[in-house]
């Protein structure tokens, strides 16, 4: 092993053996991926940038993200400020017009970006964290534990998605944190399955055997050896799902569940504008366009990311 002698002398035997296992694992990973050790992340970004559509969509997603973060600074008005006459048509002063209470729709949409994107990210994070944990346990231990957890996933997935989220929303109650959990719990089954299937492949890899042979604990093998290798595909799949989560969140808010007025989540804006669709169609048009553009860009970025990571398409 190409280790420096003084390091071998200094380290405790177990650590030494483990660092050897890690080295092997690195070599294994390198063989699987690219022959030269380059930064995977940069390589993928470079491959993604070949397509103009990807670059544009990434820019749009970043733009929305920036608007969401900077909304309190750059929005012309606060989201609950009544600043003008009700039902003003879109004009230079109010680009997206005003709503039934004379609130500036542009400002509300900008503040709404924070809630919509925040809900999407946080809920995805929740389902990723729990799903990975459960999927890891099921995939690593196999047998009865696996059967039990997978049957549980079967049951959760035999309730149509939006219905499950809705029932959870009813149970958890309204509010931002509760909505995040309602959306996140609904997605656990899917990410648990993904994690499990990549664990099943990795469980038999040599570096796991190597780690086990030097008596690493299960927790250590899972957290230090398997998860870093299983993480990427699960992350990509989940990223591709953020758009769908944002759409589900908007749907729930549209039904009046989830985030409550006067908070300007995009679905809630649509739900509020719906009653005035004859009188003031711009109340519905603009928030919906924002959802469409953001979700479209997210989906295209996800597609691009998947293509860039697909070894079959490598040059």
């Amino acid at each position, binding site marked *: 092993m190409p280790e420096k002698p003084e390091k071998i002398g200094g380290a405790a035997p177990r650590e030494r053996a483990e660092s050897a296992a890690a080295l092997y694992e690195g070599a294994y990973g390198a063989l699987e991926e690219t022959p030269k050790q380059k930064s995977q992340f940069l390589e993928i970004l470079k491959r993604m940038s070949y397509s103009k559509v990807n670059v544009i969509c990434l820019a749009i997603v970043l733009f929305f993200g920036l608007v969401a973060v900077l909304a309190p600074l750059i929005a012309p008005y606060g989201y609950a400020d009544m600043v003008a006459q009700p039902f003003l048509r879109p004009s230079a002063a109010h680009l997206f017009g005003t709503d039934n209470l004379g609130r500036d729709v542009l400002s509300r949409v900008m503040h709404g970006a924070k809630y919509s994107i925040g809900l999407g990210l946080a809920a995805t994070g929740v389902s990723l964290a729990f799903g990975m944990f459960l999927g890891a346990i099921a995939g690593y231990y196999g047998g009865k534990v696996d059967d039990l957890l997978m049957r549980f996933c079967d049951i*959760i997935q035999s309730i149509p998605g939006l219905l499950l989220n*809705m029932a959870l929303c009813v149970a958890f109650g309204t509010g931002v944190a509760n909505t995040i959990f309602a959306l996140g719990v609904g997605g656990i089954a899917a990410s648990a399955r993904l994690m499990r299937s990549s664990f099943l492949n990795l469980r038999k890899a040599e570096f796991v055997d190597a780690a086990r042979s030097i008596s690493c604990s299960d927790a250590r093998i899972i957290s230090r050896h398997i998860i870093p290798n299983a993480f990427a595909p699960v992350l990509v799949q989940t990223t591709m799902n953020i758009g769908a989560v944002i*759409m589900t969140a908007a749907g729930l808010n549209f*039904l009046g569940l989830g985030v409550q007025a006067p908070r300007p989540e995009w679905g809630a804006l649509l739900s509020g504008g719906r009653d005035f*669709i004859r009188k003031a169609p711009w109340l519905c048009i603009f928030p919906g366009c924002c959802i469409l553009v953001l979700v479209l860009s997210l989906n295209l970025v996800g597609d691009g990311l998947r293509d860039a990571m697909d070894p079959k398409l490598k040059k």
Partner: protein
Amino acid sequence: MLKYILKRLLMMIPVILCVAILVFTIIYFTPGDAAQVVAGQGTPAEKLDELRESMGLNDPYFVQLGRYLHQVFVKLDLGTAMVNKTSITSDMQARFPYSMTLALIGIAFAICVGIPLGVYSALHQNKVGDRIAVVVSMLGVSVPHFWLALMLILLFSVKLGWLPAYGVGGIAYWIMPIIANCVGGMATTARQTRSSMLEVIHCDYIVTARSKGLKQSQIILRHMLPNALIPIITVTGMNFGGMLGGGLIIEQIFTIPGVGFYLTKGITQRDYYAVMGGVILLSVAFSVIMLATDLIQAFVDPRIKAQYAGDVKRRRKPHAREA
């Protein structure tokens, strides 16, 4: 084959039972007083206590759960709605056909438009027609269907006045709800068809078929599509679930008196029994559809069928089921 169908039907029972338990548990732990909902606002405290006792709300969780399951699965009775005091079972009988019509016609459209579109794109890969089809199907995946419904109303009812904005009646009333509900499914079907067609299009057996001098239509129908069909069927099954769930919002927008409309009303009225009944019913419908897709897959693909045919030793291991 018959054995397989029977086995799958039997396997559905515990799943449905567990769904009912799950839904009951979610609703059970929902904060809120069922007796208050039944009695209405401003009922004196003693009366509420009495009601709680008579409804069995003071019993332990397992007793209540057992009673509910017994009622639903043995007596086939979903209970009485808390607010309107009507029988949920007969309410559902009246409303279920509307939801099913919406979802079934939606699925039919998704298949009839999505598959030809996907086949066309795959055959003309990277040409103008394919590019347009890809963009359109991506738009279809990304558009929120409730917003699309609102925009359709804005265009066809408010501006043009061609179609009625809400309610039920003749065909005209169904056009917009069905379009809004099926666009997403259509787009996912088209995308899946395109990608699985592209996978088979360069296979050796297609080259063989072509070199035999078969007609293009024969190659597509007999050689490409059957081999590309399995993932498309899976996606269609998932779409059906999406449409049953998504129909919830569509029914609300167009005031179609289906299960979804009943559910959303149940939620705003805090009518827990109505919500439970609706969710369980739709989940059962979804399970039946998923079973049907599995059976269709076995029917279409002899490889899957062979695993279950007659008394051939089962090659499928219990753990081999992939996500």
